[in-house]
């Protein structure tokens, strides 16, 4: 029913007809409004539609561009930035153990506590608590936090428990990171031997430095994907960490302790500058103990003094004095110049040579070669040595390792000084024969004595536990070595210079040394007292070398200062190695002790 709104018959208003009427009225109104009569051109809506279409095309294009293989890196990068982390994975440093597996150095996890100073919003109480936990003065902590750098360490190598408590405070701007701390359970006893590491757990000195390549691993790099809760859900090794390997030293921690405590007591009793002890295994050349005093506590970095860090037994040289005589005598025996029972006139206890005087402590008169060594006569030794070609003496001294650094795997090992024989004048040949004009380290000296303890051959020394026996190099004929051994045993008898070196239950052999120290090119009144020996004398198991530097306690002779230390260390070492005492020697010692007691 189409009808023009205007053409209408009169109708009652109401019901459906009324509604129609109203609509008709609206139309009438619209027709009357010129604005509403404007007819929009069709192209405008099409333009809008086209615009929308273009927008969608652009979006689709962009989506294709980002995800369809044209430039996918962007979104991947964004995703990685939100969910992926690349973490450094620290490699644990290897453990150092002694020959029996006792831990000498080991790394344990620790935390480094660090801060971004700008982000730190901690109250006074929080800071005080933090300072107390870190064991850092509050002032120092505040000073560090006032720093304008973006990163400061507050303290490194903090115990994990302490770090956990700090983390539990949830302080803004304070963070912790994973690191390691090196612990040395034996402390000062093995301090110079083992050396130490820096805060990054890298070796700085001693064994830690020498075996850095074995001990220090290589940190790894790990790629992690985390979910929105921060849990790792996928990983991928960019580079796997290589863990540091453990090393087993030849050191025996019991013997090391015996040597250390005997040395410390002796240095203190003799008011000496310092001292060192080396204990070698005769069979393998392994270093069973190597200790120095004064020492330091590796746990207290702040108290380290440079002069206490040196492993003196290896890095310092001294003129050995009489401890070198056995090598001169052995050379003479080897060359057939003298026999053990040949006699030498040492009276009047001094001799002139090239404008210099060689003296003995007292006049001994006519001595056999054996007695020359037992009584440590400089004159006798000089007279014997002067009958030798310089080259022969040099050959022996070089063959036993003087003038060359021992390849023991220790840092800072020195060569000592042994001049070529062509430049020796007779007086020099004589003084070198009794240990002046050459310089050696205690380790060199101890190693050289292996030649007497081992029937004339010598093995290299090592600080690593040896699995196979080392190759021995012959230096002297066995008969010569045995003859010198007997003389060295005589030196520890009542007749010799070192009766105080004796050990109850075991025969021992050895030689004292008392050498003046060179100061500014002149011999001073300061002495180095030493004793090198081995035990048991007939079937030697250990060589022990003792050096006491500048004793001031009234005694300075090697026989008074160093020999008793040898005795103590030898007794302890032989017991630790479970070497049975020899019954007759023990009975003798017991009788002596009983007589003394009475």
């Amino acid at each position, binding site marked *: 029913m189409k009808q023009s709104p205007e053409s209408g018959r009169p109708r009652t208003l109401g019901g459906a007809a009324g509604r129609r009427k109203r609509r008709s009225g609206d139309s009438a109104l619209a027709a009357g409004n010129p604005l509403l009569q404007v007819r929009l051109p069709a192209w405008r809506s099409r333009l809008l539609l086209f615009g929308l279409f273009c927008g969608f095309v652009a979006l689709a294009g962009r989506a294709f561009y980002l995800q369809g293989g044209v430039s996918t890196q962007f979104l991947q990068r964004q995703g990685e930035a939100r969910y992926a982390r690349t973490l450094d994975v620290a490699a644990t440093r290897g*453990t150092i153990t002694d020959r029996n597996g006792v*831990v*000498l150095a080991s790394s344990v996890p620790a935390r480094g506590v660090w801060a971004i100073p700008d982000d730190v919003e901690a109250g006074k109480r929080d800071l005080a608590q933090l300072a107390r936990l870190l064991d850092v003065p509050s002032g120092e902590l505040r000073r560090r936090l006032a720093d304008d750098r973006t990163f400061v360490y507050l303290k490194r190598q903090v115990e994990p428990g302490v770090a956990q408590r700090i983390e539990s405070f949830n302080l803004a701007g304070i963070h912790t990171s994973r690191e390691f701390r090196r612990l040395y359970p034996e402390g000062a006893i093995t301090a110079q031997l083992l050396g130490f590491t820096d805060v990054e757990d890298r070796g700085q000195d001693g064994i830690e430095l020498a075996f850095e390549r074995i001990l220090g691993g290589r940190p790894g790099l790990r790629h992690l994907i985390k979910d929105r809760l921060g*849990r790792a859900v*996928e*990983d991928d090794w960019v580079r796997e960490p290589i863990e540091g390997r453990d090393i087993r030293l030849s050191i025996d921690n019991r013997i090391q*302790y015996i040597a250390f*405590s005997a040395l410390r007591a002796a240095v203190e009793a003799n008011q000496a500058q310092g001292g060192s002890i080396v204990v070698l295994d005769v069979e393998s050349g392994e270093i069973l103990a190597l200790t120095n005093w004064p020492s330091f506590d590796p746990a207290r970095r702040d108290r380290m003094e440079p002069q206490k860090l040196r492993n003196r037994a290896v890095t310092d040289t001294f003129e050995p004095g009489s401890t070198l005589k056995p090598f001169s005598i052995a050379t003479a025996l080897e060359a057939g110049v003298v026999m053990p029972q040949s006699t030498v006139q040492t009276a009047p206890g001094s001799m002139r040579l090239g404008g210099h005087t060689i003296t003995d402590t007292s006049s001994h008169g006519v001595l056999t070669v054996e007695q020359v060594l037992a009584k440590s006569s400089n004159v006798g030794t000089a007279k014997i040595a002067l009958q030798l070609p310089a080259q022969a003496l040099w050959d022996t001294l070089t063959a036993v390792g003087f003038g060359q650094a021992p390849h023991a795997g220790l840092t800072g090992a020195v060569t000592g000084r042994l001049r070529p024989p062509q430049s020796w004048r007779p007086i020099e040949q004589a003084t070198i024969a009794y240990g002046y004009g050459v310089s050696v380290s205690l380790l060199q000296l101890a190693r050289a004595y292996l030649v007497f303890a081992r029937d004339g051959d010598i093995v290299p020394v090592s600080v690593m536990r040896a699995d196979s026996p080392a190759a021995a190099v012959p230096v002297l004929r066995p008969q010569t070595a045995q003859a010198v051994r007997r003389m060295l045993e005589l030196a520890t008898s009542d007749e010799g210079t070192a009766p105080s070196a004796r050990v109850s239950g075991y025969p021992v052999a050895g030689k004292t040394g008392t050498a003046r120290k060179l100061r500014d090119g002149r011999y001073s009144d300061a002495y180095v007292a030493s004793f090198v020996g081995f035990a048991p004398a007939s079937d030697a198991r250990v060589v022990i070398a003792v050096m006491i530097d500048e004793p001031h306690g009234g005694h300075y002779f090697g026989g008074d200062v160093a020999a008793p230390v040898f005795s103590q260390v030898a007794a302890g070492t032989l017991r630790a190695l479970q070497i049975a005492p020899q019954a007759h020697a*023990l009975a003798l010692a017991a009788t002596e002790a009983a007589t003394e007691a009475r």
Partner: protein
Amino acid sequence: MPIRLIVAVLAAFLMASAMSLVTSRHRARGLFADLEAAQQLARQSEAEGNRLRIDLGRAAQPAAIEVAARRLGMRPIDPEHTTLLPPAARPASP
């Protein structure tokens, strides 16, 4: 008609496979998190073991033993108090 059926079946398979992919992915992540936790525990245990070994070393130090022995009234061996038994006199082992 059979084509429609095939499509429906394939669609159902697709859905099932998608669901199982999501599930297995979820489980893999759960297992990975467990593995991480276990490895963390292993590391911690190893560190603790290391620390205990060090403590053992400290406790077994000859110096510590000597101090303890002296406290108990013990003293070092000396020849006066040492008797060597000849091999024949050794008691037979039970």
